[in-house]
């Protein structure tokens, strides 16, 4: 788009087509050119969210803290099924999940909630759902403060080796999130029920992901005579969550004494770093394919955003 180039020489105009659909690659280039807008929109989203609130950013810390307390109490004391250092285990999975769930929810509504921008000015529309992901990442960073606090309190050490996988896991998460966000944000303009349906789907998805329970506890079960095994990994979030748990919780097996008898409980897949890396690699490749498709769908649906809003 010429609208983003630096002021050109007025005597030699370069005519750029504004009426044809840019392809997925051009869309990515446009988003990159508008990265400053992306940053301002992230800042805007954060500012608007906490404008006129006294506690401001503390609210985004209170969310995981509250989850932590509730789940901790319920699982450790009510159900008596807690793992040792359950708080660390829970937070390790909850933080990436929160990033996913909250950002996807915000991104899905991002276009319909910004009519003053969408109907009045041109910019690559994908920026809006991507800005929701950006705001989610800021919250994610803030929420790691809660995690660091918990690590200190429980004197639990993460795995230095597996910590190297965290950036990869985060990349996989952001790519998957971007694909879902861009696609759903566009669909939601035409079918507003998408955002409500998404809330339900996310609720189910949360419980289908090994966050409050351990991966191995379910993988070893069989449902209707069929072993669950690594079918759990069909959920792309599972691979990401278990990587976070492997790095931060840092225990593959734990020894619990439910009836006074020491029993070994398997928590996470007892594989090496390459196994985890392979899972993440697959997630990244799948996400990139989905992202390409999402940009394509977005480009087709974008034509009438300004009218449909």
């Amino acid at each position, binding site marked *: 788009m010429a609208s983003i180039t630096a002021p050109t020489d007025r005597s030699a105009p370069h005519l750029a087509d504004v009426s044809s659909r840019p392809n997925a690659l051009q869309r990515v280039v446009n988003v990159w050119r508008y990265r400053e807008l992306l940053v301002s929109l992230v800042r805007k989203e954060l500012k608007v969210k906490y404008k006129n609130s006294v506690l401001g950013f503390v609210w985004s810390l209170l969310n995981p803290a509250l989850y932590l307390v509730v789940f901790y109490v319920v699982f450790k004391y009510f159900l008596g099924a807690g793992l040792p250092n359950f708080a660390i285990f829970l937070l390790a999975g909850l933080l990436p999940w929160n990033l996913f769930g909250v950002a996807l929810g915000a991104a899905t509504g991002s276009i319909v909630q910004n009519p003053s921008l969408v109907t009045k000015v041109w910019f690559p529309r994908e920026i809006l759902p991507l800005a929701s992901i950006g705001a989610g990442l800021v919250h994610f960073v803030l929420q790691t403060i809660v995690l660091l606090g918990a690590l200190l309190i429980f004197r639990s050490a993460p795995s230095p080796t597996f910590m190297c996988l965290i950036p990869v896991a985060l990349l996989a998460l952001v790519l998957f999130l971007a694909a879902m966000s861009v696609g759903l944000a566009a669909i939601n303009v*035409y079918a507003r029920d998408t955002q409500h349906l998404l809330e339900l789907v996310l609720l189910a998805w949360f419980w289908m992901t090994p966050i409050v329970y351990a991966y191995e506890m379910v993988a070893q079960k069989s449902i209707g005579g069929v072993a669950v095994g690594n079918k759990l990994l069909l959920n792309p979030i599972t691979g990401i969550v278990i990587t976070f748990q492997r790095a931060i919780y840092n225990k593959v097996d734990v020894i619990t004494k439910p009836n006074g008898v020491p029993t070994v409980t398997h928590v996470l897949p007892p594989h090496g770093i390459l196994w985890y890396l392979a899972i993440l690699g697959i997630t990244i490749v799948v996400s990139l394919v989905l992202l390409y498709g999402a940009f394509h769908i977005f480009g087709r649906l974008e034509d009438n955003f300004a009218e449909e809003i």
Partner: protein
Amino acid sequence: MGASIEIEDVSKRFKLYQEKAHSLKERVVKLGRLPYEEFWALRNIDLEVAQGETVGLLGHNGSGKSTLLKCVTGILRPTSGRIRKAGRVAALLELGSGMHPELTGRENIFMNGSILGLSKAHVARIFDDIVAFSEIEHFIDQQVKHYSSGMQARLAFAVAVNVDPEILVIDEVLSVGDEAFARKCLDRIKQFQREGRTILFVTHNADLTRQICDRAAVLDHGHQVMVGPPGEAVLAFRDTLLKRGLDPLAEAGITAEWGTTKQVRIVGAQIIYADPTAGHALPDEPVKVRLEYDAPERVDDVAFAMNIHDQNGNLLVGTNSDLLGLDIPSVRGRGEVTFNLDRVPLLDGVYVVSLGVHSHDAGTSYDHRDQKDFIEVLNTTKTVGLVHFPMHVDISSASHDTQAAL
């Protein structure tokens, strides 16, 4: 001069769903095939705007002018056809373009700048100019939701004109805000014109069109009626309004309803131009306004009156047969009264004629015929304003130097 905006055979179709079905359930149930009507907001528009040219878009509400502007800025994508443009476009579409109510004026300036593709450092450099132009220094750190509509318009306009766009797209924004600010915006628009920037401009205001546009295009229900000199375009625009039965005066609020006795009835009226085939008068040509009456019974106390208004409802002249020195003793049966205008010293436009028959003291109105007849005046010069003053310009100077300087 090369083209700055090229609009080639652009059409835009909207689907009007009979029931706005935004819910997923309805879409699923009907498998995405909801009953809809096609509505063509734009049909085969062709318009080329040259570098440094100012083109006005005239059209009634719903004529497609705003849709066209949105297609040019890329907000909407045309269904068919191609639009190309050269350089950055700053668009002012309606009030508060792209302003977020929860953010302060300062934050909005930065966000608007980045929407227009400027870096933060760039916006910081022009920030003071923007604030100075907007004249809202004291409120710049307040949330925009506390701004009046005039203040929002000021801020939006200040951003748009200070970001150094190659193309400025304006949709009816000059009508907001006070006169002093509108004047300032107009001055800035004229500065843009001198700097060779391209302006695409939507307005209802005929005077403004004549004043600043090099050319104007008239849209009517998505069709392009004409593109041409502003004076002709304004006439064509008024034709479209009149054909649609839209009264250009209605908005100006000129309605005169009073009871009439019908003792003398106006049965017809004609505007007669010097050139009967032209359908308009040039400013120095005579025009006759002829009125046909019918008085079934003899009426003694009678005078014929004529008022001419401009499109904004300003009375240009109001007169009657008494004032013009014609004493009509009585009327009976059919007859004609002709007001002979030696010249119509007006710049171009459509002027509205109202006729009436009343008693000498105007205490009794027999009949009237309001706003049904029009005098069209075509001005061939680019002079702006309302009155065609017969004039010319001279220069005399003491030395050759002054002349050279001029």
